[in-house]
């Protein structure tokens, strides 16, 4: 029905004229295309006009010179990128990459453990436990961040606990600090990391782990040789969903880290809203975009290699 035949063989007109044409005529074909285009237009226009064109403009602005007020003056210069090579900015990029990598690793390890625990539960329990992870995931991002100010303030719950354990004596300043900022990041991204790992671990036949155990694999080898490789697509997705977004965060380093140690997100916000240097802000955004594309390429290549290896492994 959907396939258009080039030239229908001539047939004598059927006696009944009310039947719809079995082969699309030129007229209905045009109509069909028009309807399809109309259906796709709202979403297509949104992406085109509000995503693609704006991104192209950012790319263009990153090569522009600034007017005295920090606006776009036009022209072509590499000065904005050159200025980003300043040690002050390089430090931000290095710190962001480190924080993002650390956050991904911690989220992945914890996410894997939780997923492994989840898939071992009976189906009904699994549904309930999954709900327990869905609730914090949908809880307002700011609430989840300022919750840590409650917890970590001097004399707050965590401080009371460490006092009772004899680890601290009296009110202790944990906020603002890099540690608090990191805990906030892990807390913000952990649910995001659990879902894809769980989704891929759920598809693994539990008999495989048991078989490996019966064949003499210890706990560690069951995981490293059997389950982890099988969960790798989910782990790759989780890594991508935590690594790149962490780079662009700006709320957590301000509220929990005191704004001293900035992520790329903070840098972009500062350049746009405080320094009002649009070309520099655009250049920093393009760098973030480039880091995203590199990460996508790396994770994509890893996933592709994985698929090929699995296909080659076939039924083994």
């Amino acid at each position, binding site marked *: 029905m959907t396939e258009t035949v080039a030239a229908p063989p001539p047939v004598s007109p059927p006696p009944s004229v009310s039947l719809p044409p079995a082969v699309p005529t030129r007229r209905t074909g045009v109509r069909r295309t028009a*309807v399809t285009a109309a259906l*796709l237009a*709202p*979403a*297509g226009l*949104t992406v085109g006009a*509000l*995503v*693609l*064109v704006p*991104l192209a*403009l*950012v790319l263009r*602005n990153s090569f522009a010179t600034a007017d005295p007020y920090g606006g*776009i003056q036009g022209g072509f210069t590499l000065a904005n990128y050159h200025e980003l090579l300043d040690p002050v900015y390089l430090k931000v990029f290095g710190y962001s990459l480190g924080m993002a990598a650390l956050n991904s690793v911690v989220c992945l390890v*914890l996410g894997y453990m*939780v997923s*492994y*625990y*989840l898939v071992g539960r009976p*189906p009904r329990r699994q*549904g309930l436990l*999954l*709900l*327990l*992870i*869905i*609730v914090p*995931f*949908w*809880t*307002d*991002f*700011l*609430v*989840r961040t*300022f919750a*840590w*100010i*409650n917890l970590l*303030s001097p*004399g707050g719950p965590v401080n009371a606990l460490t006092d009772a354990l004899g680890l601290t004596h009296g009110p202790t300043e944990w906020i603002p600090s890099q540690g608090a900022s990191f805990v906030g990041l892990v*807390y913000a991204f952990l*649910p995001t990391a659990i*879902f894809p790992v769980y989704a891929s671990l*759920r598809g693994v036949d539990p008999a495989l782990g048991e078989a490996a155990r019966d064949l003499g694999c210890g*706990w560690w080898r069951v995981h490293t040789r059997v389950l982890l490789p099988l969960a790798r697509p989910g782990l790759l997705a989780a890594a991508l969903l935590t690594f*790149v*977004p962490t*780079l*662009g965060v*700006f*709320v957590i380093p301000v*509220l929990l880290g005191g704004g001293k140690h900035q992520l790329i997100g903070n840098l*972009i916000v500062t350049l746009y809203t405080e320094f009002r240097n649009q070309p520099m802000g*655009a250049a920093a*955004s393009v760098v973030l*975009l480039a880091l*995203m594309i590199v990460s*996508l390429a790396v994770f994509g290549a890893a996933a592709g290699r994985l698929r090929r290896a699995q296909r080659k492994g076939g039924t083994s």
Partner: protein
Amino acid sequence: MRSLADRATGWLARGVIVFLYVPIVVVVVLSFNDSDVTYKWAGFSTRWYGVLAGDTDLLSSLRVSAEVGVASATLATAGGLLAAMGMARLGRRFRAVFSGGLFLPLVIPEIVLGVALLSVFGTLRADLGLTTLVLGHLVVTLPYAALIVLGAHGALDPALDEAAADLGCNAWQRFRRVTLPLLRQPLVAAWLLCFTISFGNIVMSTFTSGVGTTTLPLRVYSLLKGGLTPEINALGTLLVLFTFLIILGAGLRQMRRVLVGGDGTPG
């Protein structure tokens, strides 16, 4: 027999799930604290909810957030539905290209999307306000709406549409009487999730809100820079309650479909 290491992992996993709740529970508990500082417990009180109810600044930004949420969720859900119906009519290759574009905003850091929109609005000399906020939130929510509706639309039995056509329904009647009722639940879920995403959004709002259109998260963020107050904990508690209601409304099945894929049943 489960090994010791297995049991240890189990306990650690339970610990992680508890870790996810400790901060939320603390916000709820401390919102009932009869003290001017958040961390010193001074007895039970609901006075901060009273303070919250009389905070006109917060209430006006609540109004902005609600308006922007309703507008962007409605546009995103409608756009997602139309796109799903359109994509079903495309060939394999075009469909792949279109869905690539549709889901592009999911992989691009939101802050870059915000900066990009701000640049366009700046070039057009458009005043930042409700319209720019809604457009920004539409960019953020559309992929989620499309994700839910596309999955549900793809799972529909094409025979139902064909049967309706055979019975003499025209395209509009088939949409109105067959497709729409069948997709009611996923559409409700998509709308609610888009509203939630818009309502809690801070990154896109940072770049698209203007004078007089400060959204609730933006207002709270600027308050927090001056320090946390029990009043903000009270607001946080209401937002946690709101999350529960949204999840109930959207249905767990739809939620699982988006987050872990498949038909939503574990195992």
